[in-house]
Structure formats: structure tokens, C-alpha cells
């Protein structure tokens, strides 16, 4: 497997040499050029967290406007921009990138690999995400933010009903962002297929990895629908095509189909990795592996597939034939089965294990409660007759916040507390964390539970104001109060993380006793993750004496090398060398940014210049190294 000469070197010397080879200079260039998946993962988390803050402030303003009937904190146009940006940013700029951040930081560690399969592509993906986010948020400060709702239904978003640049920011921004998401997804898939530690056959892959891989496959199939829809809308708006204009033979329902073919899988693209986080956290605090592992894998896979067959339940009121709706209704109702499997697997894990209550577990428990409540209302929306009555009311707002905040944000915060030692080497304060949990959990339910009621009372969503005397006032006031409590709780989360990084105690090695490989590395891990590539013998390698002892004694894999293994059973295949840090990913992302800005401002020579620059950078990036003389002679 490795060269014989390596065995002659004592282990300590080999490790020291490895340290030298992987050390990153503390320079500005190195900061921009790094391809270390842990640093990139942290950047994803911080950037997505910042976008979460901005979109959260949007939400607070919206709730302030709605605190009383006839509120006049915001103008109608401001309100419409804010709710559109809130939704768009939370879905596209917070949830997915945040979870990709966890994936970036953790997947290679959990697999026992040294980095992602394509480290430079990974860096490129981050930069593109950052630039797309900056474009979209800067539009808000310039007052030209998208204002068509996050699903941007035509004809409202098409000419002649939406002039101005607002919707161009939306279409171009999301296509640009899609580049990043697609790159990330391919990277996760290849990493998980090819870089698993020897012995980690499919039946031993961590559930979080299953979730990330399932998500990535969903991205590959779902995102093209969004990109195509946005491209067609951009062409309609900018170049006068007629895809969505009925007068010239187009069709407005086409947008809804295309958007939701992406949109509903996207809900699970957000929720699945979060469920994976839950499955990763539980073993450490229940002192046993997640119950019914094969069933949870089954659930992950089937959710990923069925989620592509439920999109029309967003269109139950469009007047399509009710028979064609029912095929989607059937899938929407029965997709609950795999979700139920996961919930009861977690409950079983807790029932059959020994529980240690720490902050991450609190957030998991809060997640299960909230997610189950969002799940039961989800079943209701799968029923066509009920959906036709309640959709587009505040009940729907309540439902999807239970699913998305409950299903994604609770696990994300739990994961943040759980993996803070891996990410930063520090421990967060338990006391502050418990306060944060209490405020977030209480504030969340105070904000969103009343929305079920205002929805049942007939309050439509996306209204900037409402009249008094319809029974909606008290529930809206409660929601607004709750949103401020929730905001305080979230600020406490941020505070506890900042405090931990600034002056928290250094984390012990494997402080929680987790079962996956990231806890078998040092805390925090070295740039090369593992000096020797781990051997896996079971589902819980970090609890496995065989794996741990061999990590100490196996020979060190020298240099910037990684071990490829076979796809299904993870048999060792061959060594490959990993790329070094490079500025090219950043340059490529900048060139693409020029293309997007050129299109946005309708300065087409700029866009063309950007395309040329992109080609130049990418050609340089991928230029194959010239053969060495020995290789040339061999050839």
C-alpha cells in the first residue's frame, strides 16, 4: 500500500514531516488560497450564519409591522421586498449552505479521509456562494430586492407586471448560486463514494453521510429545474421570449411546475442533512448507536426519491384535474412513513440507551417535538381537499416554519454545540446553552403556534396589513412577541459561540464520546485529519478498539496523498495525490461574478469579458502537468 521506505522512519518523525507538508502559512495569500475542507466548512458556517442574521432581522421587521392591525412600520413595497428576501435568503443563502458547511467540515473526517475529493472545487463553491449572497443582499440595501415572493410566480414576476431589476437579481442570483450548490453536491457524492476509509462498506457508512449523499443526489436532479425556470424567466424579461406569456402561446402553470419540481425536493434537501445531524448527535448522548440503522438508511433513500413526486401538492388549488392531483396526494401522504421511521428510530435510541442530558441533546429533543408537530400538519396538506381550503393562509406559514425551523434550525444549533470542539477546539458554556435552548424553543412556539390559529381564522399569508376586528389581532401580537423572544434566544446562541471561541475552555479529545471517526482524530483535527488512514470494522469506529489502536500504530501515509477505496465495500484501490492550495478557485469565482454582473446591468461586453476570463482561468486550473521524462519514456 505504501512504500517500504516509510516503514523505516519512526512514527514521530513521519508525523512531524506530515505536519510540515500540510502546514499553511499565516499569510493573506494562504487565506484566500486555502483548500482545507475544515476552513472552508467554517467559512460556510460563518457566512451562512451572517445571512441567517440578516434574513432574521427582515423577519423581525415583518413581525413588527404585523404586531397590530393597520401597522405602518413598513411601506407595502418595503414589506413585499422584505418577505421575499426573508424567504429566499433563508432557503437559498442560509439553510442549504449552512448544512453544506457541516458537510464540508465533517464528511471527510467521518469517512476517515484527508479532504474532499475535489478540494479546489470546494473552495470555488464557497466563493461563488459568498458572491451570490452578497449580490442578493446588496440589492436589499439598494431597494431593488426581489419582491415577487420566494417562489416568484409568473405573470407577476414577468413583464409587464414587474419592471425594474428586482426579479433579475432573483433569477441571476439563484442561477449563480446554483453553480456553487451543484459543485458542492458532486463533491460530496464523489467523496463519499471514493474516499471512505477501508472497511467502511455501505452498511457501515455514518447516517449523516447517507443524508448528505442523498441530499447531493437530490440537488443534481432538482436544481436543473430551478435553473431552467430562472433562465427562461430571465429570457422572457430581458429578451422578449414568451415561455410564460399565455398571449403568445406560453403557459403560466409551467413556472409553477418547474419551480416546485425543484422546490419540494428542496425542502428535503434542507431537512435531510439536518436529520442526519440528529442521527449523528444522538449516539453520544444515548450511549448506543441509532436504533434500526438499516431502516433509517431506507428512510433517507426513500425520502430522497419520493420527494420528487409530491411537487403538485403546492398546486392543489390551481384547478388541475383532481385525479392528477391525487397521484401526488398519495405520495405526499405516504412520504410520512419514512419520516415516521426516523422519528421512532430516534425515540427508540433514547428509550433503549442511557441518556446524558447536554445542550446538543436538548436541541435534538426540541427538534423531535417541533418536527413531529410540523409533520402532522404536513400530512394535512397532502390531503387535497384540506389543502385547497388552508393553503396560502397563515396555517401554511406555521406549518413550514415548524418543518424548516424545527426540522433544520434546531438540529443546526444542536450540531453547532456538538461539533464546536471539532470546528474550533473549544467548548461552549453549558449554562448559556441551556438558556439559549429555553428561549429559542419557547420563542419559536410562541411565534409560530398562533399562526396555525390565524390561518384557520382565514388570514391569508403575504399581507402587509390586515383590518382589525376579524379575530386575528391577538394571535398576531403573540407571534410578534414570540419573535422577539426567539431573537434573544438566537443572540444567546451566537454569544455563547463567540464567547467559547474567544475565551472558552480548550476541549478535551473526544469530549462527548461520539461514535464516528471525527472523534477519533485529534480535537480539533490537524490539517491532514489522520496521520494513518483509519481501518473500519463496524458501524461505530470511534467506539471500536481495533480502529483506535490501529490509528496509533499503523504506518503514516506520507505527503499530500489520499487513499481511494472501492465504491460499495470500500476495499483499498490506490493512492492519489491531493491538490495544493491555489488562488485559481477564487479567480474563477470572480470571473463568474463579472459575468453575472454584466448580465444584471445589461452591460453585455462585460459579461462576455467575464466568460473569456472564466475560460482562461479554468483552462489554467485544469492544465495537465507535463509528463516527467521517465513517464514520457515509459509512454
Amino acid at each position, binding site marked *: 500500500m505504501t512504500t517500504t521506505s516509510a516503514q523505516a522512519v519512526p512514527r514521530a518523525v513521519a508525523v512531524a514531516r506530515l505536519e510540515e507538508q500540510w502546514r499553511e502559512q499565516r499569510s493573506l495569500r494562504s487565506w484566500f488560497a486555502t483548500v482545507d475542507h475544515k476552513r472552508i466548512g467554517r467559512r460556510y458556517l460563518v457566512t451562512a450564519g451572517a445571512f441567517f442574521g440578516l434574513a432574521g432581522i427582515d423577519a423581525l421587521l415583518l413581525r413588527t409591522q404585523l404586531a397590530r392591525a393597520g401597522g405602518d412600520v413598513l411601506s*407595502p413595497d418595503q414589506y413585499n421586498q422584505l418577505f421575499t428576501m426573508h424567504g429566499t435568503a433563508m432557503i437559498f443563502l442560509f439553510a442549504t449552505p449552512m448544512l453544506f458547511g457541516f458537510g464540508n467540515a465533517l464528511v471527510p473526517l467521518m469517512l476517515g479521509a484527508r479532504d474532499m475529493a475535489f478540494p479546489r472545487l470546494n473552495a470555488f463553491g464557497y466563493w461563488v456562494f459568498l458572491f451570490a449572497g452578497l449580490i442578493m443582499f446588496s440589492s436589499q440595501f439598494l431597494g431593488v430586492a426581489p419582491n415577487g415572493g420566494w417562489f416568484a410566480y409568473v405573470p407577476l414576476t414577468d413583464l409587464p407586471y414587474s419592471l425594474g431589476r428586482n426579479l433579475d437579481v432573483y433569477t441571476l442570483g439563484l442561477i449563480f448560486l446554483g453553480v456553487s450548490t451543484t459543485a458542492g453536491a458532486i463533491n460530496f457524492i464523489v467523496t463519499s463514494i471514493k474516499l471512505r476509509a477501508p472497511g467502511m462498506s455501505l452498511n457501515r457508512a455514518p447516517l449523516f453521510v447517507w443524508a448528505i449523499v442523498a441530499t447531493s443526489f437530490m440537488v443534481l436532479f432538482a436544481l436543473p429545474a430551478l435553473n431552467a425556470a430562472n433562465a427562461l424567466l430571465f429570457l422572457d424579461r430581458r429578451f422578449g421570449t414568451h415561455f410564460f406569456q399565455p398571449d403568445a402561446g406560453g403557459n403560466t402553470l409551467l413556472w409553477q411546475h418547474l419551480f416546485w419540481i425543484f422546490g419540494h425536493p428542496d425542502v428535503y434537501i434542507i431537512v435531510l442533512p439536518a436529520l442526519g445531524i440528529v442521527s449523528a448527535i444522538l449516539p453520544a448522548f444515548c450511549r448506543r448507536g441509532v436504533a*434500526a440503522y438499516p431502516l433509517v438508511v431506507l428512510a433517507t433513500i426513500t425520502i430522497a426519491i419520493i420527494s420528487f413526486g409530491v411537487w403538485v401538492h403546492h398546486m392543489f388549488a*390551481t384547478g388541475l384535474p383532481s385525479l392528477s392531483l391525487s397521484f401526488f396526494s398519495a405520495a405526499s401522504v405516504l412520504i410520512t412513513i419514512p419520516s415516521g421511521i426516523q422519528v421512532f*428510530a430516534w425515540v*427508540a435510541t433514547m428509550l433503549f440507551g442511557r441518556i446524558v442530558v447536554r445542550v446538543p441533546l436538548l436541541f435534538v429533543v426540541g427538534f423531535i*417535538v417541533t418536527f413531529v408537530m410540523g409533520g*402532522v400538519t404536513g400530512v394535512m396538506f397532502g390531503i387535497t381537499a384540506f389543502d385547497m381550503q388552508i393553503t396560502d393562509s397563515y396555517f401554511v406559514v406555521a406549518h413550514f416554519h415548524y418543518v424548516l425551523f424545527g426540522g433544520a434550525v434546531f438540529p443546526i444549533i444542536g450540531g453547532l454545540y456538538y461539533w464546536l470542539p471539532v470546528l474550533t477546539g473549544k467548548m461552549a458554556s453549558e449554562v448559556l446553552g441551556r438558556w439559549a435552548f429555553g428561549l429559542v424553543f419557547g420563542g419559536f412556539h410562541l411565534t409560530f403556534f398562533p399562526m396555525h*390559529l390565524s390561518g384557520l381564522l*382565514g388570514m391569508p399569508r403575504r399581507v402587509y396589513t390586515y383590518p382589525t376586528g376579524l*379575530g386575528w389581532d391577538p394571535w398576531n401580537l403573540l407571534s410578534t412577541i414570540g419573535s422577539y423572544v426567539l431573537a434573544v434566544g438566537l443572540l444567546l446562541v451566537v454569544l455563547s459561540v463567540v464567547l467559547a471561541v474567544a475565551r472558552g475552555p480548550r476541549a478535551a479529545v473526544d469530549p462527548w464520546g461520539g461514535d464516528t471517526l471525527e472523534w477519533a482524530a485529534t480535537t480539533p483535527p490537524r490539517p491532514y485529519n489522520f496521520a494513518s488512514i483509519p481501518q473500519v470494522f463496524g458501524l461505530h469506529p470511534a467506539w471500536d478498539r481495533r480502529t483506535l489502536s490501529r490509528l496509533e500504530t499503523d504506518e503514516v501515509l506520507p505527503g499530500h496523498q489520499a487513499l481511494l477505496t472501492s465504491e460499495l465495500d470500500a476495499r483499498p484501490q490506490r493512492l492519489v495525490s491531493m491538490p495544493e492550495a491555489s488562488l485559481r478557485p477564487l479567480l474563477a469565482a470572480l470571473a463568474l461574478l463579472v459575468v453575472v454582473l454584466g448580465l444584471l446591468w445589461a452591460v453585455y461586453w462585460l459579461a462576455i469579458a467575464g466568460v473569456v476570463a472564466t475560460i482562461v482561468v479554468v483552462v489554467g486550473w485544469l492544465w495537465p502537468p507535463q509528463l516527467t521524462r521517465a513517464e514520457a519514456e515509459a509512454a
Partner: protein
Amino acid sequence: MAAVLVALCLAGCAGSAPSTLDTAGTGARRVEGLWWFMFWISVVAVLEVLLLLGWALWRRRRDTRVRAGDAMPFVGVLGVGLPFIVLVAVYGVGLRDLNALIRPPAGPELSIEVIGHRWWWEVRYPDTAGAITANEIRIPVNQTIRIRLTTADVQHSFWVPQLMPKTDLIAGRVNETWLHAERIGTFRGVCAEYCGLQHANMSLIVTVQPEEEFTAWLRDLAAPPARDLTEQQRRGQAVFEAAACGACHTVRGTTATGTIGPDLTTIGSRWSLGAGAAPNDKGHLGGWIVNPQSLKPGNQMPPQPVPASDLPDLLSYLETLR
């Protein structure tokens, strides 16, 4: 549990809300039944999980044994078997109710065309020539009314929560729904699909009347009876006709035949101005005419700077249009 109590109190506390749980229409009543069926199932499901979680947290912190055995039977029964039975039942009931929603109780006795505009509702009674109104629908009680839904611009959604689940108004399509009110009363409806700047102010009122009252109203709507006008009201009519009002609005029996804005033949008896933006009284109407943009920013009506001395006359004329 608190959740349950709050929800139970809903029907009582709702007051004059357009509540889906205080229904008066055949379609909405069926969905109300469906809701309570699913609601109780949901309560049981949530309680089950809460109890198991509570038990785990309370019991398993003390018990130090870790049961290694795999929990397949537990997950299989509680996570697959039970939910499957419940979900199939819910799906079946839902299918039954959907079937009821697409088959109105009796053959349609009246047709109404509803056309969505940014941001108001045009209502036409095609069987009675000239019967056009805006932002209000009157229907006779205990009859099935067929509603034809189209839009003049962007997508809207027609929702009268107490009468019938919503149906979208989609550009390039004609959608249909029906109303069947089981009691007399007024019921608030809204546009439920986001349609731009003033989506919040796009409401309508459905007034359910005894059949004779409705027939009389419809007759008067189509051919308004001659009105005796006072001196001031006649002056107001002259102002109305002299100003550009007729370019956008219609008042049947006068020279005003515009079709861009709502038909004003019965403006005096409407429930609101600007599809719910303001109450319909002299004070609001005066402000609305001169500067509609402050009451409903962004609506399509431009400010009408009528001469100051004419405004009171105009208002007194408009009040007579009932």
C-alpha cells in the same frame, strides 16, 4: 395540551372572523369535518411521541443499562405499521371529501363570473344582461352557484373561507368553483395568492340573501331605477360626467362607460372602498377620490383634483348610486 385547549376555544373566540371552523357553505363544512378528523388523529400522534420522549428522558437517565439489541420491532410497529394504517385511513377520507368538492350538491342554478384585477374583483352575472358589480357577490341561500374564475392580469386566488375552499385565477385559463351557502349572512373573502403591492387589500364580501331579496337586487343592479336627485346631487352628477371618471368607470344609465376600474353603478351601497382598503362613507370617499394613493398606495387610480367646491356635490351624488 395547551395547544388543544386553545384550538378548542377557537370556534367560540373567533367572533366575526372569516373562520374555516365557522362554516356556512357546503364545501367548507365538509373540509371543517375533515379538519377535526385529522386534528384529533394529530393530537394522539403528537401525544404518543411526547409521552415516549418524556418516558425516555425521565426513566433512561436513571437506568444505567444500555440495551444493545436492535430496536427493529419497536420501529416497525410504531414507526411503520401504525402510521401506515392511519395514513391510509386519512387518505381515504380525503379522497371521499375531494370527490364531494368536485361534485356540487345540486345542479347549478346560477352562474357568476369573477374576474381578478390588481387589486379588486369584478363580478358579473352573465345570465342577466348588464348586471355587473365589484368586490361583492350576492347569492341566494341554499342554491348552488357556479363561479367562473378568470384574471385580467396576474394570478389571484378566490377564497371565501366560510363557504368554499380556494381556487386560483390563472392567466390563460378558466377555472371553475361553486358556492352553496346554507344560511343567510355576509362572509368575507380575500385574494389568497400573492398578487403584488396591494395583495393585502383585495377583499370581497359574499352576501347570502333570501331568494326574493336577491332577485330584486339583481334586477335593480342590471337596470337601476330612475332616481330623484336634489339640486346638489344633480350638480354632483354634472361634476362626475365633466371630470374624467367615465373614462375608467361605468355608471349604468349615464354617459360613464369606462371598463378599467370597478363599475360604480351601486357604489353607494358597497361595503368598502378599494376592495377592503377603507370603509365606504362620505369622509373616506372624499379622500379616496382626491388622493386614492394615500389610502391604498400603488392602486391603479390616479389622484383626481376636482375643484374644491365641487367635491361635496360629487359625494352627495355618489351616495345616491345604490
